[in-house]
């Protein structure tokens, strides 16, 4: 059955038709067919990209989540080779009982392996492990009817361009990634609340180096002296405990309400309660890995709460030397607008270089939060935020983006022209058309 899909944010409101890829050997022919009838196509994984980077310019994409077989696993060395449509959840399911974990995981386990590479995703341990691409040994790239093995040694240029390459260099059909060993499926957590942004940076300076994982929730509506107040969370894989893989029961948002359920009032109430719920003093707890890494995965279709118009995520990273001022300015603008999301995340990124040509993270601080979409969002608030990011020398995350200006993109990602040269002519996304104009 061909189905229609949209991106995670539901904006732009574009539905695409999907042709499912099921076998590696048949994918080349499917690309050709798409190219002949629609000029170009694009790999579509599990649809967790927020904006238009996962949408084919031709509106005819190839569905990769059915290409989801494991190929080999090596539990001695912690190497997994799998087809590109395998999700990170699939990998964890078989890796954890064998004492291994993903070296890098984003905030959802429902992304595909191919998607994680194409967006060079990062996680709460960016300061110690870098991006997902840093742990990719090799992958198979199907490009112009050729199946190429890509690694740091073999086809190194395509290897680099494909990591964070937004699916434009061809179709990743399989990949080998390195895992990290764990002793238990549990996470030792530490939580402490902070009163403002300066306190965040102080905590981050002293605590980040001591922990594998660190991230902060911030109250995006707090203003004045309390700008940037929030909760600092750290974690490490527990040394003791069992290696049982457990999946918590999932809740689901059954339908899309006509309007967003997130507004200034609900948000202010939520944030107030959440901040006060957390202790002033540093508290030590233990958590299963799922609620620690993937709190939102508990609620299936959570993206529906933003209503029929969808939502946009704003995620930027600001370089170290300008971060403190720029993040404060961004938060002040957001608080003034009274908009934002319950889940707003601040994360200090480290300086480990990614092999990716167009990788998003850089040494500095990253801020991410969602906004229910409406017509004024882009012309008013996002314009102001973009200017702040631009002047601070920061950049936005293509995987989350649906609005970035072409000039900002081209300045922030100088490698874009090289990627355009290496692009497989059969691949084109709405995002790429928009930012390379």
């Amino acid at each position: 059955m061909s189905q229609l899909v949209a991106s995670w944010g539901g904006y732009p409101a574009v539905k695409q038709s999907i042709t499912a890829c099921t076998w590696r050997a048949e994918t080349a022919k499917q690309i050709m067919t798409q190219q002949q009838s629609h000029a170009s196509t694009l790999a579509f994984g599990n649809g967790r990209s927020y904006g238009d980077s996962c949408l084919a310019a031709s509106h005819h994409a190839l569905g990769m989540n059915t290409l989801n077989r494991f190929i080999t696993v090596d539990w001695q060395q912690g190497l997994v080779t799998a087809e590109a449509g395998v999700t990170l959840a699939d990998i964890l399911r078989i890796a954890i009982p064998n004492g291994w974990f993903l070296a890098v995981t984003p905030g959802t386990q429902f992304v595909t392996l191919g998607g994680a590479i194409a967006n060079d995703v990062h996680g709460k341990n960016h300061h110690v492990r870098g991006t997902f691409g840093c742990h990719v040994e090799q992958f198979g790239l199907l490009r112009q009817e050729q199946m190429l093995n890509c690694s740091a040694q073999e086809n190194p240029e395509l290897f680099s361009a494909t990591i964070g390459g937004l699916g434009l260099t061809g179709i990743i059909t399989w990949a080998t990634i390195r895992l990290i060993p764990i002793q238990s499926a549990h996470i030792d957590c530490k939580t402490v609340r902070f009163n403002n942004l300066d306190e965040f940076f102080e905590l981050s300076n002293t605590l980040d180096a001591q922990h594998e994982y660190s991230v902060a929730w911030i109250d995006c509506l707090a203003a004045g002296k309390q700008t940037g107040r929030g909760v600092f969370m750290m974690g490490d894989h527990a040394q003791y405990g069992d290696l049982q893989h457990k999946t918590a029961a999932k809740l689901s948002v059954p339908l899309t309400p006509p309007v967003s359920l997130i507004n200034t009032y609900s948000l202010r109430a939520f944030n107030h309660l959440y901040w006060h719920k957390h202790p002033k003093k540093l508290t030590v707890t233990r958590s299963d890995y799922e609620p620690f890494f993937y709190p939102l995965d508990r609620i299936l279709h959570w993206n529906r709460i933003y209503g029929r118009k969808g939502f946009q995520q704003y995620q930027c990273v600001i370089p170290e030397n300008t971060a403190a001022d720029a993040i404060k300015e961004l938060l002040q603008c957001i608080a003034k607008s009274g908009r934002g999301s319950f889940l707003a995340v601040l994360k200090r990124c480290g300086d480990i270089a990614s092999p990716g040509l167009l990788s998003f993270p850089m040494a500095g601080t990253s801020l991410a939060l969602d906004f229910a979409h409406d017509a004024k969002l882009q012309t008013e608030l996002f314009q102001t935020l973009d200017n702040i990011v631009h002047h601070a020398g920061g950049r936005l995350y293509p995987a989350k983006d649906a609005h970035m200006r072409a000039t900002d993109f081209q300045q922030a990602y100088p490698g874009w022209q090289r990627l355009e040269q290496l692009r497989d002519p059969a691949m084109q996304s709405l995002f790429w058309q928009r930012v390379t104009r």
Partner: protein
Amino acid sequence: MKRILVIGATSAIATACCRLWAEQGHEFFLVARDAEKLQQTAQDLEARGAKSVNSFTMDVLDTPQHALMLQQCISTHRQIDIALVAHGTLPDQTACEQDAELALQEFSINGSSVISLLSLLAEQFTLQRCGSLAVISSVAGDRGRPSNYLYGSAKAAVSAFCEGLHARLFKIGVHVITIKPGFVDTPMTQGLTLPKVLVVPPEYVAKQIVSAINNKKAVLYTPRFWALIMLIIRSIPNFIFKRLNL
């Protein structure tokens, strides 16, 4: 640990069932027509925790191979705890109407070959006096509809055969289950325009199949609402039914 024989192992529903079984560390004997796809499926199950996976390449239309395949399965695993017969195609109804040869071939794939395999398997299970024989038929076999009656007639043959076999083998402790899936999102249905609310992923169907085999059900409609839909379709009087384009 169970020893599981799967015929049509590269089909989406069979694969989804096998993945659930693989996590429990069972042994597999996989049969399919395409050696490369079979090997990829076997590797996947090994990685997911299967204790061992053996494969046999066979086209179900090659009837003399059936006995050979079963012989090899038995010599490898000694006994079969679950046999899942899952192979099939979705024939082009219009093409079959114009080409009797094609119609017979499609009937052989979806009907006759299953009867041949089940007859051989029944012998083995009679010998064993234990085990489950699971057969994927279809809701299409419940009534011959104008849009799909060649496929429907083959599946009707399979369903009736299974019903009889169930009653025969029940007496000696062997379980036979007829599985009747509705619309499942698989490569077989790619390209069809189906009502979206009725279509489920193969993983959904697989979960129900695996648990129905455990619970020794005789007939499984999956998803379950198809039992109701088919009850209604079967109850439509002929003078109305013949005017519909179901």
